[in-house]
């Protein structure tokens, strides 16, 4: 019999792991930049759900996934702009605003969905995949890893782009300074508020993209509360990674992999209560925290609004 351990099944599991990991990766990379610049962006869940909703709208009405990603990112950026205005420019408490935005957008998207789609539940066609020549032919790994929507490769490429930005560019220095010692950045002639605003907007864009991916590619539709805490997981991954994009990728893949493992265990017919199995992904992250979380030196000014000349 095919079933467990068949090539297709293993490939599907791996494929599923990647699909589950991508929204976390995007959100984590985005959050990482905010945190690097000193803004604890708790509102990322709200940005994701806004991205999911707007992304679905865009893709559904235009018929183009790319337009969907664009509208998703734009919605995330819009929410982030509000956050930047309130928390970076005015210096309001980041946790209050973050949670408020999350609550508000979860509620708002659920409302909009109710009035717009709750009688029709429209769905998108399958996302078009771009197989990578040659690699896509490898058994199991080919279809699992190298037959995805182009955005997946872009997300992975973004990891390396981020590494480059952080290590090699002036922008990387500015971001780090904004998070570690904003006053030093300010007196060096760089506007801290602008730097942090840019970082928060980037976070919004990435989170919105992650939400759009989740809705359009991951689910193929939007339903209320579809993000289900993915944004909070993004925060955990970003903090765990402490500024290193590659670790966000690793963390997202481990989480996605564990999700697939829970499916595999069930399909294999292992008779363990499902609720227990389903704690595995969280246990995995917790284990990573215990093992690698030591002396997690977060940016010194994380969460503290910058006010010029204040003491």
């Amino acid at each position, binding site marked *: 019999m095919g079933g467990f351990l068949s090539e297709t099944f293993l490939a599907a599991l791996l494929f599923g792991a990647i699909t589950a990991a991508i929204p976390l990766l995007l959100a984590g990379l985005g959050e990482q930049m905010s945190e690097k610049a000193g803004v604890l962006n708790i509102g990322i869940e709200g940005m994701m759900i806004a991205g999911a909703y707007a992304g679905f709208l865009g893709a559904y009405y235009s018929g183009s996934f790319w337009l969907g990603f664009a509208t998703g990112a734009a919605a995330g950026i819009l929410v982030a702009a509000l956050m930047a205005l309130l928390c970076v420019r005015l210096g309001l408490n980041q946790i209050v605003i973050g949670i408020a935005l999350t609550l508000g957008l979860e509620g708002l998207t659920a409302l909009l969905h109710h009035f717009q789609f709750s009688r029709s539940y429209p769905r998108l066609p399958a996302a078009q995949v771009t197989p990578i020549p040659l690699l896509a032919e490898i058994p199991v790994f080919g279809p699992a890893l190298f037959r995805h929507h182009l955005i997946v490769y872009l997300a992975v490429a973004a990891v390396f782009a981020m590494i480059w930005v952080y290590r090699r560019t002036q922008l990387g220095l500015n971001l*780090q300074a904004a998070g*570690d010692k904003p006053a*030093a950045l300010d007196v060096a002639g760089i*506007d801290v508020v602008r730097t942090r605003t840019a970082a928060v907007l980037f976070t919004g864009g990435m989170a919105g993209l992650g939400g759009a991916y989740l809705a359009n590619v991951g689910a193929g539709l939007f339903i209320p509360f579809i993000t289900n805490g993915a944004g909070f997981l993004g925060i955990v991954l970003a903090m765990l990674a402490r500024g290193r994009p590659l670790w966000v990728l690793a963390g997202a893949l481990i989480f996605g992999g564990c999700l697939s493992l829970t499916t595999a265990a069930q399909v294999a017919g292992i008779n363990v209560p499902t609720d227990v199995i389903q704690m595995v992904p969280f246990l995995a992250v917790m284990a990573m925290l215990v093992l690698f979380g030591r002396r997690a030196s977060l940016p010194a000014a994380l969460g503290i609004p910058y006010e010029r*000349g204040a003491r």
Partner: protein
Amino acid sequence: MPGMQTTTKPPEMRQAIVTLDGVTKRFPGIIANDRVDLVIRAGEVHVLLGENGAGKSTLIGMLSGLQQPDEGRILIDGKAMPIRSPSHALSLGIGTVFQHNMLVPSLTVAENLALGGKWWQKPRLGELAARVDEIARPLGININLDAVVSDLSLGEQQQVEIVRALLRNSRLLILDEATSMLTPQGIAELGALMRRLVERGLAVVFITHKLGEAAEFGDRVSVLKLGRKVGEIGPDRLRSLEHDELVDEIVSKMFGRNAGDGAISIPDRPANDEALLAVRDLRVLPGKDTSGLEAISFMVGRGEILGVAGIDGNGQKQLAEALAGQRRTDGGSVTLAGRSLDGLDVGKRRELGLRYLTDDRLGEGTVGTFPVSINYFLKQIGEPPFWRSGIEHSREINTHARDLTRQFDVRTPSLSTPVGRLSGGNIQKVLIARELAEGARAVIFNKPTYGLDLANTQATRQRIRDVAGQGLAVLLISTDLEELLSMCHRIAVMSQGRLVGTIANGAGAGERVGRLMIGLAA
């Protein structure tokens, strides 16, 4: 760059780069600058003097775009020009070394120097190295561009900041207490550099609490007092005065009295010579970016002041923290009045009479957002009479706090002002008041007068002498050799985590300490 001839013009004709016109800055409860007029001219080192909290740094804050004046104007090259932001200040050619460290600790020196470039550019670290070399070499500054800033000592960090300000090709260079961490050698080099810069037509604003430096390097001296400018001494008069006369004149402007009580006076020691604080073979493992301690042994007698000299970053802080119980030791023993302190925590050691005045007032000495009153008693939380059965007695706290504020002359708008808003010198006084509370037997002072103005420095030194006079043991850590020579009975020298020698104070001691510090035999 303006021509060389500027220096040859008569002083009052020299071109004014920056003019302050009736500038006023208020903070809640205080007028930090009160209608200050100041002209900063090309080709001059303009020394700004004033006691702690006189408003010097506030003035600098406005010149560098960190603060906006509440009233008055700032003119650049004669034109009114509000300085909107630090980047605006930089573009106007105003470069500043701030009183408080403005480096990003997690970046390397090179990255810190590169900070401020356009965001889309790549930091040109290679190009930087050449320019830094060009600037730093004549200054005798040797910095490792690849070192991470948090690994550097405060003195080294200050050097980096000076280099950074020079890299900018400013027309006006501001140094706010930039010499506080430099060695005497480094200070001399900086003085020479300032001279060369003003000869090229730049202007320098130099803030210091050391009047000797002011007299030596300054072309013009302005004195601030309580936010007002109370006097200015022009170049002609400056040149015509003898050093001591000049100091007297400045002091009388600053404090309204004469100097002269800053003389060397080493307190008498009580007759008995019993060792109160004994340290034997103390070891601390080196950390990732801190030096360790190797087999430190010394004794401090009753009524004795033992100085610890050495260039900053040679293990003085580790020594102080190990003694206070804040840092893990790797062996050795400490006894106080015959009682072993080994294995005791900070609180126990304090109860037994060991006090430690930290040099990091903001980082660990105080809780910046808490009121001044509570900060006096931070080390006595839960103790009577301030707390009874764990309940706070605000009346007791406020009464005592008021006494201490008066006794130690802490300038604060009120007892409930968050201590972080006080000027650095006044925060220091809060710390001193706290450590000298009753029950002390041995006190470790780590750079007790760092950042204090002359009057406060003298008052603090006198307090330390008084402490010793009461029969306490004093360990005085300082990078200021003159301070040590003026107070200590003996001076130990630290280098790279070891005590490399101990010298009895007296004639020629300064020279011998200096030789030990740079690695020669005494």
